[in-house]
């Protein structure tokens, strides 16, 4: 956060001393509707609210403003604010970019401050609707990992090869992002010691990319601490696996790893984009989350029709096993709470979606999307829920989205 502050200070100073600042931005006006009576639809788990049945929701809309100052050919300062629905830590979450970029030469680039977190192909631009042919990044692939920013440094090397440009980037830093769930659950998840490497090769039409990132959890939710405290009071004779459960629920300093392979083909007429990823940790909270998607698109002059199939599946268990030997109400309450935390990332769902994109001008696009989702079970970490509907959840539902996307 200190680096972000320094960058902002530098940035604000430039406003005083220079008029040579480029201003630009992007905006999305979006309306979303669903027919699910159980799930409150959202696009990422950092969204504090979701769309419910029989309402037309505009809270997915956003506005981004960017300023860039070029000190000279080598040094630039970049700042970006993203205004969208926020409930907590609003100022920090609104600052998407605040960094200094130093181009040592045409091959080497160094950045320091708040940059995008280059986890997956679209992580850094998933809020910029105009930039993509699909209406929004696949929920199964992008929704569950809320972190988009890195407070730290990165170093990139790029070089031309025979057919294309090869690049390697390594980055180090911290990140913070909110997670919302049912019953007003809010957790500002901090990741520390983020260390990652991304390798990319691209030509005009092709892009191949691989990424590996490792990080550690820097904080925990107070409910997890309270749960461990309660478990430590339970006699071992009553719950023989108590200590193992306490350890598995301890997320502090636990290591998380993200691996991904991405490809994109776009020859201006046909589009193919696909990614696969594995997210894992040495905690029971997140256990081998596998996700992937493929998008096929065809452009017809100003129109693009694309089809996306995406899926996510984790190895998390629904229940902590074994539970207490004696089913006392107090113990069962702890058991349910432990199962809820261990099963938060229990995911098994897929979606098929069709998007029609129409270029209304070179800077304005209209998108219509229909998505059909099939979930193995609800509740799901992807969504918020009507809690009173868990007895009869609809595991198959549709979502309709209409959006206008600008760049300016």
């Amino acid at each position: 956060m200190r680096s972000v502050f320094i960058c902002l200070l530098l940035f604000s100073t430039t406003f005083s001393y220079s008029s040579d600042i480029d201003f630009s931005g992007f905006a999305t006006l979006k309306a979303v509707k669903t027919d699910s009576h159980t799930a409150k639809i959202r696009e990422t788990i950092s969204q504090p609210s979701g769309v419910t049945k029989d309402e037309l929701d505009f809270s997915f809309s956003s506005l981004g403003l960017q300023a860039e100052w070029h000190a000279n050919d080598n040094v630039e300062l970049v700042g970006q604010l993203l205004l969208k629905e926020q409930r907590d830590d609003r100022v920090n979450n609104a600052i998407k970019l605040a960094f200094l970029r130093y181009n040592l030469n045409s091959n080497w680039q160094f950045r320091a401050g708040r940059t995008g977190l280059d986890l997956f192909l679209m992580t850094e631009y998933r809020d910029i609707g105009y930039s993509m042919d699909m209406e929004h990044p696949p929920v199964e692939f992008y929704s569950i990992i809320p972190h988009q920013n890195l407070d730290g440094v990165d170093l990139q090397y790029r070089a031309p090869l025979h057919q294309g440009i090869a690049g390697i980037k390594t980055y180090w830093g911290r990140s913070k992002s909110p997670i919302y769930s049912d019953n007003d659950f809010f957790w500002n998840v901090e990741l520390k010691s983020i260390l990652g490497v991304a390798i990319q090769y691209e030509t005009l039409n092709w892009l191949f990319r691989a990424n590996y990132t490792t990080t550690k959890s820097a904080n925990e939710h107070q409910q997890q601490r309270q749960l461990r405290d309660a478990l430590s009071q339970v006699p071992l004779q009553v719950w023989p696996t108590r200590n193992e459960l306490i350890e598995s629920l301890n997320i502090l300093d636990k290591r998380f790893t993200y691996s991904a392979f991405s490809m994109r083909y776009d020859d201006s007429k046909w589009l193919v984009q696909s990614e696969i990823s594995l997210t894992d940790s040495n905690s029971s909270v997140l256990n081998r989350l596998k996700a992937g998607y493929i998008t096929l698109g065809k452009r017809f002059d100003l129109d693009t029709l694309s089809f996306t199939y995406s899926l996510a599946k984790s190895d998390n268990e629904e229940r902590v096993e074994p539970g207490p030997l004696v089913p006392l109400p107090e113990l069962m309450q702890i058991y349910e709470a432990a199962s809820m935390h261990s099963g938060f990332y229990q995911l098994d769902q897929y979606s098929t979606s069709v998007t029609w994109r129409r270029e209304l001008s070179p800077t304005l696009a209209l998108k219509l999307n229909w998505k059909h989702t099939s979930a193995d079970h609800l509740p799901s970490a992807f969504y918020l829920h009507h809690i009173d509907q868990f007895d009869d959840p609809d595991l198959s539902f549709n979502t309709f989205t209409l959006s206008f996307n600008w760049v300016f």
Partner: protein
Amino acid sequence: MGRLLSIVFVLISYPFSATADIAVIVNKDNPVDSISQRQLIDMYMGKYVAFPNGDMAVTYDYEKSHPLRGPFFLALTGRNESQINAYWSRIKFSGKVSPPQSFSSPSAILENVRNIPNAIGYVPADFVTGDVKVIYQIND
């Protein structure tokens, strides 16, 4: 409602400009005499912003509404201006690369190319003067 539909119809019906001869120009003192299409694409798509000899380049472009911009990118990359803008919004707003400096007229680009040793820009072919060097030509 009728007015809104009219506006939407006008937006949907906007035309693309026709291509004219376009010259890609550099400073007279630039040692580079020619550039390949791929190298030019890499420069103007922000993939690798350097001349063939490895020297860093400063790329000049036009503002989004300028009529020369669409034809230039269409001839160079086979992509219309919307696709180019979508591409640049990906890499610009994610903070990866700064886009080319944008100008409102060919004369402004000519003036800057004359004065900046490592600049590269494009102008209508009939705007080219003797104090800049043409290293690539796009013919109608």
